[in-house]
């Protein structure tokens, strides 16, 4: 006696959260059944393994049918085939678009192309996440990217509108899309200590301050403005950043800047002497990062540079985070007292964001 066909269809589509998770995690039916057995469900319910197998198959089939709709979540809301209560729909979408930290760190900043997709095998081996799950996550990133790529307006809003994600998840996706678009390098060894959260935080600051959307320069003629408001950095801004070079190139300015900072921080900083000794190096590092951002290659290396030029020197001198904060605040603020420096607004736009990023990046 073999079961040829075995289905269960409810007027309200039954969703088992546990099975959904197993499915999302890419387990085969057999593995999922084994995992469920291990969870002790048989003892709790008095069911048999055959019942569990049939139930799991059913749910997998349902999820498989739902997957097509999950690729365009608004369709899930308007479709008529599956009657699912709104709260459950939200859960389905949110879980489907959720991703693993380990996975996202592997692909963050990489081009979401076929080439990367080929590397998923390695990523799967490295992270222990099933290949199936890796594919889903990668495809999610790519899909969201494709949809919002050409859109104007707020990146987060666009994502939310087209994928019906929660605010938190939409922000994460905005960061992923932003990183993928600008191809920021995140995989270098010295960046390994950074979490996705760290990058997402920086991405949000950068989107808020360094993109076209940030300055609210809605293009008058839509056709003339080809750049995306939120995804691309403001080219003009990057160009202007060259002007900051004067802060380190002009020796007087540099000295004056240093003395202002030192005066203000004397006695307040545990690592004052180290700061004083390193001031010029640090300042040169920060200003040179800005000046180089006109080149795509250097934009990609932004985080590598920040870690190399600022985070690592400070860390080697054992600056506590509070001292870093004091220093960066004073370092940014003191520029306003430099009479010969004319690019105060530019400096604030640059340094305001950078300061936030650096503080976030500064940890072990």
């Amino acid at each position: 006696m073999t079961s040829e066909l075995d289905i269960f269809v409810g007027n309200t589509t039954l969703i088992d959260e546990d099975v959904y998770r197993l499915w999302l995690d890419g387990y085969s039916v057999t593995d999922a059944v084994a995992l469920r057995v291990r969870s002790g469900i048989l003892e709790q319910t008095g069911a048999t393994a055959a019942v569990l197998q049939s139930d799991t198959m059913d749910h997998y089939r349902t999820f498989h049918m739902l997957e097509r709709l999950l690729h365009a979540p608004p369709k899930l809301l308007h479709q008529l085939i599956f009657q699912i209560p709104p709260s459950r729909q939200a859960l389905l979408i949110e879980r489907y678009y959720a991703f693993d930290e380990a996975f996202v760190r592997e692909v963050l900043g990489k081009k979401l192309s076929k080439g990367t997709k080929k590397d998923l095998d390695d990523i799967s081996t490295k992270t222990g996440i099933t290949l199936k799950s890796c594919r889903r996550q990668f495809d999610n990133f790519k899909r969201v990217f494709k949809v919002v790529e050409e859109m104007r307006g707020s990146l987060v809003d666009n994502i939310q509108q087209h994928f019906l994600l929660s605010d938190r998840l939409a922000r994460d996706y905005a960061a992923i899309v932003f990183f993928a678009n600008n191809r920021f390098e995140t995989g270098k060894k010295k960046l390994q200590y950074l979490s996705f959260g760290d990058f997402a935080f920086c991405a949000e600051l950068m989107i808020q301050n360094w993109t076209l959307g940030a300055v609210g320069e809605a293009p008058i003629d839509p056709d003339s403005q080809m750049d995306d408001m939120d995804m691309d950095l403001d080219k003009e801004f990057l160009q202007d950043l060259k002007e900051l070079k004067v802060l380190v190139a002009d020796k007087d300015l540099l000295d004056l800047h240093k003395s202002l900072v030192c005066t203000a921080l004397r006695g307040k900083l545990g690592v004052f002497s180290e700061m004083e000794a390193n001031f010029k190096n640090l300042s040169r590092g920060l200003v040179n990062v800005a000046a180089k951002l006109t080149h795509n290659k250097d934009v990609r290396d932004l985080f590598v540079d920040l870690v190399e030029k600022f985070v690592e020197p400070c860390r080697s001198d054992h600056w506590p985070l509070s001292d870093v904060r004091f220093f960066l605040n004073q370092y940014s603020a003191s520029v306003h007292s430099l009479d010969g420096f004319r690019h105060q607004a530019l400096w604030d736009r640059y340094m305001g964001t950078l300061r936030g990023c650096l503080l976030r990046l500064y940890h072990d």
Partner: protein
Amino acid sequence: MPGKLKVKIVAGRHLPVMDRASDLTDAFVEVKFGNTTFKTDVYLKSLNPQWNSEWFKFEVDDEDLQDEPLQITVLDHDTYSANDAIGKVYIDIDPLLYSEAATVISGWFPIYDTIHGIRGEINVVVKVDLFNDLNRFRQSSCGVKFFCTTSIPKCYRAVIIHGFVEELVVNEDPEYQWIDRIRTPRASNEARQRLISLMSGELQRKIGLKVLEMRGNAVVGYLQCFDLEGESGLVVRAIGTACTLDKLSSPAAFLPACNSPSKEMKESPLVHPPSHGCRSTHNSPIHTATGSRLTQNFSVSVPTLIYTGMGSGSAGKEGGPFKALLRQQTQSALEQREFPFFTLTAFPPGFLVHVGGVVSARSVKLLDRIHNPDEPETRDAWWAEIRQEIKSHAKALGCHAVVGYSESTSICEEVCILSASGTAAVLNPRFLQDGTVEGCLEQRLEENVSTRCGFCHIPYDELNMPFPAHLTYCYNCRKQKVPDVLFTTIDLPTDATVIGKGCLIQARLCRLKKKAQAEANATAISNLLPFMEYEVHTQLMNKLKLKGMNALFGLRIQITVGENMLMGLASATGVYLAALPTPGGIQIAGKTPNDGSYEQHISHMQKKINDTIAKNKELYEINPPEISEEIIGSPIPEPRQRSRLLRSQSESSDEVTELDLSHGKKDAFVLEIDDTDAMEDVHSLLTDVPPPSGFYSCNTEIMPGINNWTSEIQMFTSVRVIRLSSLNLTNQALNKNFNDLCENLLKSLYFKLRSMIPCCLCHVNFTVSLPEDELIQVTVTAVAITFDKNQALQTTKTPVEKSLQRASTDNEELLQFPLELCSDSLPSHPFPPVKEHLESASSNSGIPAAQRATSVDYSSFADRCSSWIELIKLKAQTIRRGSIKTTVTVEKASPVGDGNFRNRSAPPCANSTVGVVKMTPLSFIPGAKITKYLGIINMFFIRETTSLREEGGVSGFLHAFIAEVFAMVRAHVAALGGNAVVSYIMKQCVFMENPNKNQAQCLINVSGDAVVFVRESDLEVVSSQQPTTNCQSSCTEGEVTT
């Protein structure tokens, strides 16, 4: 030209990509009705076209309006080649044809293609303007309302219940060998869908005409079925109960609502009937063979084999019915309609007086090509013959009517088994004629008698019993005789006193049969049938006793025929009726008493059985005060008394008990283990696992003993197909496979629905089919309803108290002592006759204990009985007179009968978002009040694939299809402005596969009533105005006085 149909195509969405190059679609729409077609403009390059068409107007006869579906086809425009069809929508506009129902159909419909399934949605608005029609000889029957619900729909009141209406139409099946067909599958599928749609429209119209002829205005319990007879054609047949319904004015409509769902159920006019009882008197096939037709109750029709003029050996026996049939045919059309059958399963209060028992008839036929579709005489004659037989069975039971009546077929190749079954009953003539005052007095009396236990009382003459049965005095009123066991096909009346909870009881059976052709095959089947019936009955009886219960409701026995086997599946809901005697236990007897180890084994089995009975009693809370000792510890009766139930012999259980009657013992239900076969039977008895705790199941509308439903419901369909290993199939192996299949299916359901605990699976409906040689397909549709466990405990007694209350008010005219007895029957009170009972159980006195317990003496009772018969006869006459009379007088009772003037109520607000549409096989929605019936939903779909593997195999294919069917039903209901389907039923799910060709095809037919419901919490303001306690009695009063 009495109607103008107006259609507007608004927009489409989620269309499939038809042009690979642009990833877009150039869609347009064809709107077709009858032979007229309109087209919209092509909406270029969009998957979400906005056509916003003008109103397409069709001027048509109302006959066409009823027959034809509106056909909407969405196509992709192609400049160079033929336009590609995207899919179709068929809209049945019947709901627009009668007042009170929907006034507009407007909403998003799934665009359906038989090959690709649902492909996007289309927004359509449909309206109908009807003109007054003065033609009296019209062929249409617009205005007759149809309900699938097998009770008087809520928010209506039955003025007259006219009776049985039936009709069938036949045609050639456009595609009978689908898999070998060469023409495109899509074309033949669509031809078939359209034909069936047309045929059911025609059928409905014809039934409507009959109803109008009878001066009714509605059909309740409408059941339409398709017989796919393959090469010999396609039959669409329908049965129903013609009624004259009155819409309750809105305050009255809310009257029965009260507060709790339980109350609603109690008070609703439909569920109220004080009737049922059935007697499980099954007659042995041997008896049948010897031709003592009168003794049949649960009868097996000896099959008539009609093929090209030549009769089989058994044909001679059929002479009687056959002649009757001929007579029947010569009868006038009016008398033809005189089958006193009712498809209802629940009745207005007072309608049902007594119940005789289940009557059923089957017959095996050889299908022949239908030569002239316009005169489907043969099929008509077949059914007439069966109905005649049912009628005579009912008569033999002293009953003049059959309730809970249904018909079904099972077809395999050219052999067809026709089955009909129902419950013989005595009805109150009040509802069968115009509501004159004269009926009132009698009715009043009747109602008193029928209170709570009346329906259990035997309707036949005790001295001339139609079949052997064991009678005792009613445990409730002590006045009338009741049988020891009752089988019925109807729902449990809500005012019946039930002890404990009910449960689903199933008997499952397979029998191998040699493959054979034509006559030989039909003969083989007809020879097997009686044995199957008998065994199914024995199983039911055993299982019922094992549960410690004494009555079955909603009994449905399905016999399915396949190439090389027959399957029998009986489902029913077992309950313990307080009015009936406590069931005896089951005794096991060995045949070789000398073998010591064997004896031991037997006693071990016996202990297991006794334990199971005890456990079941606890599980289902069956604890009538007086019985426990008697049952559990009952000694094995003396050998002389012990009647043997030999498997090979065909004595029925009832005969057995009848033999014992003179000894006053009733607990001797003996299973003799004389071979491995019987052993296995006992084992299988014990293998039925009770549902996990927190779950209950039944196949009736409501679960006895649970009455505080909460509002969560989940309707589902589950399908399983197993492949038998073809080697060495034996009956035992087959039985085990089938049993496991059903049990595993139930287990899976319990597991899947575990999050709803505590809950009850209601209206569990199993259907078995044998699509191929080694395949068994089981389809289950049911609804899971949650209930409040704590409240359940508190309220279990209230129905009893309530009915008591009612009884005491109603019973004033009656003798005093029943009243006392009524109060005695409360479980909490000690029950005086118990002692008597025990006494009699221990003594071997020949006088039935119950008889001694009451003061009524036997002879006077016999007198009563005969006077009863008089009464019945009298009633039978009044019915006949009544139905004629009604044809004249109904007009005033049904102001909407003609339906040509319409209530232009405010159009239902069509929600643009996807609203929730509930579906349930029940006639009600827990915690809600149905405020409007929008019309019948009757849909037929075919789905076919040539890429089975790619669609996830057979499971993926069917899963998607059933989900799509649900979606299309919901969409149609939503477009009518409704938010639920009640009395939903999947009548057919025919699945065929050919994995080698990577193909599969499935046909599904569903129906139900589209309704609008309002949550009870929203109604509180209204219902609070009503004093809730007296609701029920005031309802009853209302019914009486009209």
